């Protein structure tokens, strides 16, 4: 877990403009954590806290570490609860080249591509790399692809997340050489 909690020392009265307080997405990380695969720790402190740069549903106000003072356990409970509260969930099968059996994930649980990719990396114990429009998933042996409603195989990340959620029917993690045609550069 990062040590800094991102707060400037201030001398003024509390209640000043929120933007004076440095934001920190620690809390957002905690929210996400419960949405990741169940083997993850349900604690706030873990390697995942280092993923501070992860894109997130933008907070309208900056969020402060440890505020409101709700314990991690309770926070994760709430998140997990909300996830299960929404309707049935969007489960899609995920296959990986070379793996003996498929997995299933609920796309509704993730807020965006970075979370999804992190979850896939965890689930299959691999690194996927960074997406770019030009080069696809350069720098990795694996490329995540999906089959859309039309039956075509697409590279994950090209369309906006919401569109992806609605059109994705199944996923396949392709090994590098095969993914070449989909934008992966050897």
């Amino acid at each position: 877990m990062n040590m800094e909690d991102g707060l400037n020392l201030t001398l003024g009265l509390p209640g000043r403009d929120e933007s004076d307080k440095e934001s920190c997405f620690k809390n957002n990380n905690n929210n996400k954590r419960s949405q990741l695969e169940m083997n993850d720790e349900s604690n706030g402190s873990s390697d995942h806290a280092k993923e501070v740069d992860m894109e997130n549903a933008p907070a309208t106000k900056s969020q402060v570490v440890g505020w409101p003072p709700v314990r991690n356990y309770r926070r994760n409970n709430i998140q997990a609860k909300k996830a299960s509260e929404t309707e049935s969930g969007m489960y899609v099968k995920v296959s990986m080249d070379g793996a003996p059996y498929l997995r299933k994930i609920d796309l509704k649980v993730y807020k965006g591509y970075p979370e999804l990719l992190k979850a896939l990396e965890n689930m299959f114990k691999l690194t996927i790399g960074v997406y770019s429009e030009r080069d696809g998933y350069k720098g990795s042996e694996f490329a995540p692809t999906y089959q859309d409603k039309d039956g075509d195989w697409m590279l994950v990340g090209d369309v906006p997340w919401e569109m992806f959620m609605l059109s994705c029917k199944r996923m396949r993690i392709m090994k590098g050489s095969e993914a070449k045609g989909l934008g992966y550069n050897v």
Partner: protein
Amino acid sequence: MDLNQKRTRMVDRVDSVDPDLVSPESTPMCPFPDEVLEPVLSLINSHKDRSSVSLVCKDWYNAERWSRRHVFIGNCYSVSPEIVVGRFPKIRSVTLKGKPRFSDFNLVPEDWGADVYPWLSVLAKAYPFLEELRLKRMAVSDESLEFLAMNFPEFKALSLLSCDGFSTDGLKAIATHCRNLAELDIQENGIDDLGGDWLSCFPETLTTLQVLNFASLNSEVNFNDLEKLVTRCKSLRVLKVNRTINLDQLQKLLLRAPQLTELGTGTFTQDLVTRPVADLEATFGSCKNLLTISGLWDTNSLYLPVIYPACASLTFLNLSCAALRSFELAMLLIHCKSLRRLWVLDTVGDMGLEAVGSWCPLLEELRVFPADPFEQENVAGVTESGFVAVSRGCPKLHYVLYFCHQMTNAAVATVVQNCPGFTHFRLCIMNLGQPDYVTNEPMDEAFGAVVRTCPNLQRLAVSGLLTDLTFEYIGKYAKNLEILSVAFAGSSDLGLKYVLGGCPRLRKLEIRDCPFGNAALLSGLTKYESMRSLWMSACNLTMNGCRVLAKEMPRLNVEVMKDEDSEDSQAHKVYIYRTVAGPRRDAPPFVLTL
């Protein structure tokens, strides 16, 4: 040293009592022979009382230390395991607390410390027949759990609350090797849940289990093994399962254990109805001894009513995992006339709290948690009117934890007038620095009313827009205050000075993001040895200020947590506590003891 002086000193629990300092002129005051004294003392269980007893004279000190069976250590760094075992030869039960409370909110870096292992290795030699270990906010590794399981043949009870560093593998060791296990209570820990097979490690011969709480673990356990375990442990009185247990399975468990007094259910709804609701209801009706129900994940209007037959004798209802709406709560509470403690989510709204006031006249404790703590727009939740409604109907209310987005000074004043018996008043207005939303004034008068009206107040947490006036009130009126939590409040050093200058019983003070600086810190010089600890983070302390404190008070550990981003002269996170063990020997590189 004058005996009277010693008695008024705030020395509690395992503490800095140097046996040589205890008055040697003991004989004329203590006509009781040991054979009389020790059995009498063995009936005294309160730590505070035992501390007082040990200060009377040398004979009583000795009698007390030989008769003590349970030691409570509120700060694991205030004393070393060697000192503890040296003073108390016959301990059967140890309670240890580690990290500062703000670690619950991610303010304490990982690897800060509070490792239980060094304690265990000393305890194993001194107390091979140790029976109970209760840990809170300690770092517990699988190796520690394995060590515990293998080195204490009489071990009976393990309770882990808010600990981290272990996985279900550690639990496997406990389940496998602790032949006399009566209690396994795993709560809210940062645990690596690698699977539910730990439960299957309990041997078929284990029949002594009385308490089993695995509600906070996520993985599925083998239900057959669980059912068999519950069946053969006839003394089981507390069973709290996790969400993976469904209603059908819960019913089977209840039929096996109708003697339960505390039940934590699993998921309390089902998609496929395999059994009529009436069956479940009847099963709950057959549990005549239930005092506590918790869990109830995902419950709704269809399934919640099955617990009604068990509600009349309930004293504690924990609904903090069930996002109930107001009418659902109201319908439930009609049946809960004996309720003393209630925990809910703020989804119940003010109307739900009105129902609390209407139906629960014996209520003593209320906790309202936020369902959406980070949601800042379109927030529902509870307001001041719900708070007032409860206070009107529940005059015995003495413990409140209330998360809300708006509050008024007038409402709080009304609440404490209705319930002057408050011992614990923890109000969290979630929007930082929020004033009274009606008058736009600071919330000073609210907390002023609390401290003036509630003479028994032991614990206070403040929030909202607060000036130094709040702290002036606290310092002046809160004579019995022991624990104070402050965040984003105050205007100047005066605030902290007021508190440190008053509050004679203060033990724990935790402060974050307040404009309190060195002068304020140093104004409390003489007070810190009578307190367990002081936490100050993101205030205006500097390294020099802390150094001065450390120099003046050698029996305090003044620890500064260094931060990559803050300047070298700033003391970003400071943790100060009294100790007889000297500076920590296991401090990580980012913790500087001055």
